[in-house]
């Protein structure tokens, strides 16, 4: 065995050790700088973070909050089976932007052709009716450019009003670390719940805010600020009130004690629970 071959074999072994992905279901929880990766001239960037020699994709539900350079992210979740995203392991969980600035988080990888993004748009988002409307308008506007200033996004049909029998409903809203900003889809659900409360002439509404501690994979802990449970509960109550829910119906409370974390799914504890008794 030549010396060169030995070196190459050692390097390969090291690379293999680096590349061996944790098995699906492995819980991870860590703080890191996000890295932005350009995915092509016509698409957006994607983000990943490195931890213990692995790259983890930073993907959240819509409008929950995309990572930000100049800020670290708290990454929590379980490794998910399936193809890589952004050249990184996909996890089922959440990536929270930490509010304080960290100027050292500032890496953008240029587009290298390896990871190509997919552009979104009116033809693959919205309701089926909205997509069909856009497709039809696109066809007609191609023949008649005057139609290009007609709105391509139709208003969605109004949701049908809730009908009896009215049963107890609950909604749980999960938040990023130290944040009281609810994601858009959750706020749409909150609006639907407000409609339900009014139509069902509900007897009572409980709004309870929580805060939580996240246990990181290295054993350290990260606890949300004292005030955040109250902020979350009051904000939800304020939105319900703004949507016409009688303030006297709502019982608003919060738990100042941070829910303990165990390093597996701690993100689920950063929440507001809303329950409605019809």
């Amino acid at each position, binding site marked *: 065995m030549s010396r060169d071959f030995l070196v190459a074999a050692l390097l390969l072994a090291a690379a293999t050790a680096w590349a061996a992905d944790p098995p699906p279901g492995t819980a991870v929880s860590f703080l890191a700088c996000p890295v932005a990766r350009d995915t092509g001239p016509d698409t957006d960037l994607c983000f990943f973070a490195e931890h213990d020699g692995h790259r983890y994709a930073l993907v959240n539900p819509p409008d929950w909050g995309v990572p930000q350079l*100049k800020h670290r992210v708290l990454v929590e979740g379980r490794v998910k089976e399936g193809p890589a995203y952004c050249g990184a392991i996909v996890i089922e969980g959440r990536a929270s932007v930490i509010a304080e600035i960290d100027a050292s988080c500032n890496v953008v990888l240029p587009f290298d052709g390896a990871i190509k993004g997919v552009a979104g748009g009116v033809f693959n988002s919205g309701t089926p009716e909205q997509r069909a409307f856009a497709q039809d308008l696109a066809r007609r506007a191609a023949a008649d*450019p005057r139609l*290009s200033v007609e709105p*391509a*996004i139709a208003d969605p049909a109004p949701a049908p009003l809730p009908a009896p029998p009215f049963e107890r409903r609950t909604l749980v809203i999960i938040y990023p670390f130290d944040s009281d900003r609810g994601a858009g889809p959750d706020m749409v659900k909150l*609006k639907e719940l407000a409609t339900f409360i009014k139509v069902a002439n509900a007897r009572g509404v409980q709004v309870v805010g929580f805060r939580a501690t996240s246990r990181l994979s290295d054993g350290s802990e990260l606890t949300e600020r004292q005030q955040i449970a109250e902020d979350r509960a009051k904000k939800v109550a304020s939105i319900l009130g703004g949507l016409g829910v009688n303030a006297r119906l709502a019982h608003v409370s919060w738990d100042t004690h941070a829910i303990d974390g165990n390093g597996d799914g701690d993100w689920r504890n950063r929440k507001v629970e809303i329950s409605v008794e019809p």
Partner: protein
Amino acid sequence: MFAAIALLSVSAAGIVVSADTYDAADSWWRPGDQRLMPASADYENALGRVRIVNAGGSFATKDHAFFTALGSNGRACVTCHQPSNAMGLSVQTIRRRWEETDGKDPLFSSVDGSNCPNLPQAVRSSHSLLLDRGLIRVALPWPPRDADGSVIQPEFTMEVVRDPTGCNTDPLYGLNARDPSISVYRRPRPVANLKYLLELPHGVPPSDFLFYNDKSLLPRNPETGGFATLQLMSDGRDLTPKIQARDAARNHLRSNAPLSDKQLAQIESFETQVYAAQAFDKVGGELTGAGAPPGLGPEALEKGAPARLGNNPINRIFGSFAMWRSAQAPAAGADADRALMFRESVARGADIFYLRRFIINDVGKYNDKGLGNPFKRSCGSGCHNTLLMGMDLAPGYMDLGLNNLPWANERPDLPLFKVTCNSNAAPQSYLGRVIYTYDPARALITGKCADVGASMTQQSRGLAARAPYFMNGSAANLRELVDFYDRRFNIGYSEAEKIDLVNFLSVL
């Protein structure tokens, strides 16, 4: 060329007012002039003509509240919202009024038409911000007040680092006065196309009841009880035309008595049915009519659906310019080739505006509102996404870098403030808790650290008639506007692309 344009006729209902043979009696609307506000009129500017459509039909302005002096300084709403300037006010017009009236026009009233009321009013230098940058002094109470007048405890303190106008350190007008106020200097926004600014957004739930930024409730429109958009003013402080009219009458027109219901109704009625857009280009010819891009001209705005998202492959904000990609010259003759080339340039500029993505980074209240930092979009698919108008549809505001260092253009003519935020306040996402700014903007209304320097994006119509641009007038012309973005976001536009973009913006 100018004589030929002056002879051009427009529609039967319309008139043409030439600024090249400037006649103050025609082009400048003086408060109290007894004139006819026509259903449609074209006004010349350096690049062509802007058209004002008065959709409710012509009316006599005699005793109309928008056109009548309502306070002690002789100003009317029309003083700062001139039809010839797309219902805004260009610095070119301001300078003309200074020269024609030797600085005596009510426009130069000491209260806000000068750098500070404590300055000698007869000299030009006391009005330099208005004459050089088109800026009106806006004095806001400090600390901020709620809609009901109660004090908002701000999350930050302010120091005056530099005070070239002297107003912020003045014992009567400054931050340490008995009734403390902060003086910032802003451009008057055009009072046109308002239906697009006042209607809640369609198709982007939950932005019809929540701020996009932090998902808190939008404020209520006290007149209707519904939610309000905040698109009317750069800092979002006055929610409706009537509230803005009351504010302006009190603070800019020096009205001692509140406006009557009839006056408010007149102002609101006029403002919500007037449309402004460029309609003719001196090189490119007619911008409207058969075969023209469908989004150009005020008629498209009058007919258009307000508050719709336009950042999609069909709408592309201002509609198709495909007919100008291989344009036909508007008429045979010596200028035909230039017209053809101009139209093709506009169509290329539209493509750049619509399609050319660049990395948008470190914009407070934008990258941090769920979109990610950085974020890659074109002008049209990013911040300027409202169909036919080009402002951001979702109710929210952002710190593009117009007011805050280090991004803002160097402005030794403006006051500079040091903002120091409380340690427990949420920081401005990319500047932290110590911010140097020429104008804290939205933060002067909310008192929030994260809002320092943030403002509402503006509509992009009638630009050729109302330079300079940005809320503090830091871009003297469209080229400087494009250059600002190119520098701020390191876009790397080529010289040809910049020319195409300028031509495109000039016809909107």
